[in-house]
């Protein structure tokens, strides 16, 4: 009858703790929001599902082999493991975790070899995470695909809108300041690297946020990604009140002159110009913007449609599945249920709001001092959240003036915002991560 006992001890109910239960509920909530409310379903369905899988009690899908051993090994193996990690106690799984995380690559390898020999293996989601995110590859591949889907025409027709994409990044840096302030007054506990990663939520750009936090703050990645995608989905609710509060009815009614046509040749040369600027001025942004420009060149060159189709089709879809599940692996209760997560969620929405406001305010300023009329509503599109934010600009514009079609005008700052936050990401990785 020992087998029944084994099965029962192995079952989820017997091993479940409160945190795992809560995280499973959060995973279900994300699935509900994604499926029923249309919250960025392409990412939030895999993230939510991955979050549930990660918290299945006893399955250890999100844990490395060593972590799985720390929970499940017998005392002899734990003692051996503690010896390799150089600690005394073997009682406490958390202490082993901490020692393992603090170890160098060589000790980690020895520990892995020990537990592998004893039959412990990396969990499925842990493997996905290592291959797709820890290597940095998945967000870069997604960025390539986004590049292959982006039309820079509106931006090239009106390059000044790049300034709006720059202004909206103020949300990022203001949030960094907020995060260190909360830490300095003792409410939260963020390092400067954590703060930088949290700020990037305000970039409103999923792969950028995941890429930066995988480098600067891997432990916060789950919360940051969930916040970034959730708030991107909430853009139609977050932005309009701010936009209306900061603009007058007359400003919202401004009609803009039609954009000039952009030649194919300009569209082909542009990604190379951007790449060269990155190469000369900000090499730390080269992986993100390099892949972005590469995807765009595949599309615009017109001679490699096979590759362009793959980049924006099968490849990005496949990578999105594994990226989402991998982000979900960071929703394990032990790492997610923490006051820091609340801080991240709060700071993230502030970042969105400040970014929106900065964009609108700079647009007002440019309208005041520029020669051609510029509707300040397109400033809010500078946060990126492509193409949601541009659609919001258009919608709020139509409310004020039914003949006012801002969509194409807002696409300029919208894609500028993608570049802007990738630049911000490069700066932060260069200054904080180095």
């Amino acid at each position, binding site marked *: 009858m020992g087998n029944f006992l084994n099965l029962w001890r192995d079952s989820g109910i017997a091993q479940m703790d409160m945190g795992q239960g809560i995280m499973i509920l959060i995973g279900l909530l994300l699935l509900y929001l994604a499926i029923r409310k249309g919250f960025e379903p392409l990412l939030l369905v895999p993230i939510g599902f991955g979050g549930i899988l990660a918290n299945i009690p006893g399955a250890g899908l999100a844990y490395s082999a060593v972590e799985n051993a720390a929970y499940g090994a017998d005392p002899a193996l734990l003692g051996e493991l503690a010896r390799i990690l150089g600690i005394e106690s073997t009682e406490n799984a958390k202490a082993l975790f901490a020692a393992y995380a603090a170890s160098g690559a060589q000790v980690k390898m020895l520990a892995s070899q020990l537990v592998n020999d004893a039959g412990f293996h990396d969990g499925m989601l842990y493997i996905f995470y290592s291959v797709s995110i820890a290597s940095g590859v998945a967000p870069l591949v997604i960025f390539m695909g986004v590049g292959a889907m982006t039309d820079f025409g509106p931006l090239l027709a009106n390059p000044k809108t790049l*300034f709006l994409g720059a202004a909206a990044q103020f949300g990022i840096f203001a949030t960094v300041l907020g995060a260190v302030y909360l830490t300095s007054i003792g409410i939260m506990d963020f390092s*400067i690297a954590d*703060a930088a990663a949290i700020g990037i939520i305000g970039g409103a750009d999923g792969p950028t946020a995941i890429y930066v936090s995988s480098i600067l703050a891997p432990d916060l990645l789950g919360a940051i990604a969930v916040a970034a995608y959730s708030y991107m989905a909430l853009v139609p609710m977050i932005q309009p009140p701010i936009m209306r509060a900061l603009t007058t009815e007359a400003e919202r009614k401004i009609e803009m002159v039609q954009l000039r046509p952009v*030649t194919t040749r*300009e569209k082909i040369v542009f990604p190379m110009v951007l790449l060269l600027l990155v190469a000369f001025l900000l090499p730390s942004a080269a992986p993100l913007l390099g892949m972005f420009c590469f995807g765009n060149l595949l599309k615009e060159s017109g*001679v490699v449609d096979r590759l362009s189709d793959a980049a924006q089709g099968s490849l990005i879809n496949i990578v999105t599945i594994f990226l989402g599940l991998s982000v979900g692996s960071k929703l394990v209760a032990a790492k997610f249920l923490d006051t820091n997560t609340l801080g991240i969620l709060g700071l993230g929405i502030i970042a969105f709001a400040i970014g929106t406001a900065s964009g609108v305010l700079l647009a007002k300023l440019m309208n005041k001092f520029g020669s051609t009329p510029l509707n300040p509503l397109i400033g809010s599109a500078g946060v990126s959240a492509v193409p949601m934010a541009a659609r919001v600009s258009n919608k709020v514009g139509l409310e004020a003036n039914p003949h006012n079609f801002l969509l194409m005008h807002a696409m300029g700052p919208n894609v500028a915002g993608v570049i802007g936050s990738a630049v911000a990401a490069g700066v932060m990785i260069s*200054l904080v991560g180095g």
Partner: protein
Amino acid sequence: MQGTLMDQGLELMLFGMGTVLAFLSVLVLSITLMSWILARYFPVVEMPQGSGASPGRPPVGVLESPAEDARLIAVISAAIHRHRSKKSQ
């Protein structure tokens, strides 16, 4: 030490925002320059696109009217999309 963290945050904000603005300003200049050069020195003959060997897009206007073509493609892909979604039910 907390003061130091705040300082780091402030510095990051100043230098970061400064870099973003500077970089995008240079980009505005570069784009303007690029468009001007292309318009001035490479007047648009709307792209013969490669001298001969290039298996690129067909020269515009040689095939059917592009509008017609685009519409055809749109309809076909809609049909296929519908087929797939039906199949997957």
